[in-house]
């Protein structure tokens, strides 16, 4: 009897495919970038604002491993310091977006009824308003610009989208048997939300979160190009690529390294998000 049970356990549906070395490479890359962003002050880096006029537009060398820009600033240390703005904007605005959007979405999908109808209609109307235009318009007049304001504006603009994704995900879980069973047993709403629903929508939430962070970081670059991100000389990846335009022919390194840093970071985030989604076998939510 016991043996049979054990066999049944062994023969349970196949174990999940491992995530693969590429996945962990991407995780490591993201971790390295975050580490650099947090400890940029402590690490032995050159001053990102120091202008060394005896070394202008120098190519990669031992002293400046990524070279210097058109006013003699070290590109490598500017990239590391620049990641602070990009990473802070990416993570910060998603914290706001998920902090407001996710609880509302879960609650609406769990409670249903009038609360859900009103909130969902409201969010869908907000969603129709192109968030990017609103972001550009608000940031263009809300001066002086700071990282905090950019995070706030993008974060609030992302709330309706997060709400929709989380609500859709919760809806598909909320009618499952185990949720009904928990209700029948008389579990409190809070317990059902935290113990039954949350773990089951977490995979899709996390993969959407990562892809959202990537999108926001690209958006910060776009804003920098339009002159709507943090003011120079504070480096951000977008700022650096934007500044490199004028000296593109004399010093292509100035464009290449920050672009690489940005693209590799985005690629890693997208890859982790995508792999997690297929790992947990979540069908794509139609956005």
């Amino acid at each position, binding site marked *: 009897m016991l043996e049979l049970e054990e066999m049944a356990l062994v023969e349970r549906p196949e174990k999940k495919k491992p995530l693969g070395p590429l996945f962990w490479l991407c995780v490591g890359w993201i971790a390295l970038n975050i580490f650099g962003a947090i400890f940029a002050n402590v690490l032995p880096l050159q001053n990102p604002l120091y202008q060394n006029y005896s070394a202008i537009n120098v190519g990669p060398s031992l002293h400046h491993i990524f070279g210097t820009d058109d006013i003699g600033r070290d590109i490598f240390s500017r990239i590391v310091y620049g990641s602070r703005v990009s990473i802070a904007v990416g993570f910060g605005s998603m914290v706001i977006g998920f902090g407001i959007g996710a609880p509302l979405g879960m609650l609406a999908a769990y409670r249903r009824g009038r609360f859900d109808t009103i909130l969902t209609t409201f969010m869908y*109307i907000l969603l*129709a*308003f*192109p968030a*990017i*235009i*609103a972001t*550009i*318009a*608000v940031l*263009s*007049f*809300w*001066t002086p610009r700071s990282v905090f304001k950019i995070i706030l504006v993008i974060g609030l603009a992302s709330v309706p989208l997060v709400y929709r994704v989380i609500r859709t995900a919760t809806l598909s879980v909320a009618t499952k048997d185990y949720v009904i069973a928990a209700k029948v047993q008389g579990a409190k709403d809070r317990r059902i939300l935290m113990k039954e629903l949350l773990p089951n929508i977490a995979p899709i939430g996390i993969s959407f979160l990562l892809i959202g962070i*990537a999108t926001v970081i*690209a*958006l910060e*670059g*776009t804003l920098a*190009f*339009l*002159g*709507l991100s943090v003011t120079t000389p504070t480096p951000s990846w*977008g700022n650096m*690529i*934007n500044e490199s*335009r004028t000296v*593109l*022919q004399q010093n*292509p390194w100035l*464009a290449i390294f920050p*672009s690489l840093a*940005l*693209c590799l970071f*985005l*690629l890693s985030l*997208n*890859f982790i998000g*995508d792999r997690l989604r297929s790992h947990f076998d979540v069908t*794509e939510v*139609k*956005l």
Partner: protein
Amino acid sequence: MLRYVIRRILMLIGIVFIISVGSFFLIHLLPGNITAVIEGPGASPENQAKLFKLLGLNRPIYEQYFVWIGNILHGNLGTSFISQTPVVTTIGNALPIDLEIMFLSQILAFAVAIPMAMRSARKPDGVIDRFFSAGSFTMLSVPSFIVIILLVLFVSIKLGIPHTGPSSYVSLRGDWIGNLESMALPAITLAVGSFVVYFRVLRSDLIATLQEEFITMARSKGLSQRRIMWRHAFRPSSVALLGAAGVNIGGLLAGGFVVQYLLNIPGLGYTLIAAINTDDYLLVQGIVLVVSVGVVLINFFFDFIINIVDPRISRE
């Protein structure tokens, strides 16, 4: 179907109303004194008070809104304080350029994405599919401002093709070959961003559709692969594609802004950034309004097409 369309139109009117309120208050709720912005920092308090009255800012805010919306319904978005040209004229000159870029880029994106997705879906996880998927995934992580810089570097500077670099926009009224040349880079940049999305969406839907019984049926009838793909599999797989296109075209606006700004192409995006830099707030307000309504109309249009492709949706 008719009920569905009527409901959507009512919702559309509601959304447009909220957008108008949004773009109106956007300017009014922001900190800072508009009169100081218009007259410059050195303006005397008397002059500021005069302008304040002239603009009707002393009246209650809801009254201001109704005057403003009344003017808009008569096709009057105001006259810029900076350039003294009516906002409607400025937008009327810029809008066709955006439409042209959008049109060219979408044709290009679909022309590349659809055959690629069909090729990939035929043998999922085959060599070609893996190559296409990995390539499109990488492209997904390259923002449009990097694509445009690379294109300028290679096409305009290295290859030296005329009218493709910054500040070399040729109007469509002049010579159309020059115009196409100057539209090529922006169209390609936006197409790169779009085709990645379309390819991924269509590929996964095609793979799902190809496992349906009616495809097996078509195969057993001995129909050609091409006929099965285009006549049998494509239509049921294109609902998500159209949905993605609706969302994507709206989202492209931001990328389009950067591209126009970098190449000095005088479309709406370029005009908007110029207006922001000169504090031309009436023009900003006008463009925000026009673009937002445009995005909503595009989404509405695609919803409508989706309903024609798959009538089951409206019956829900």
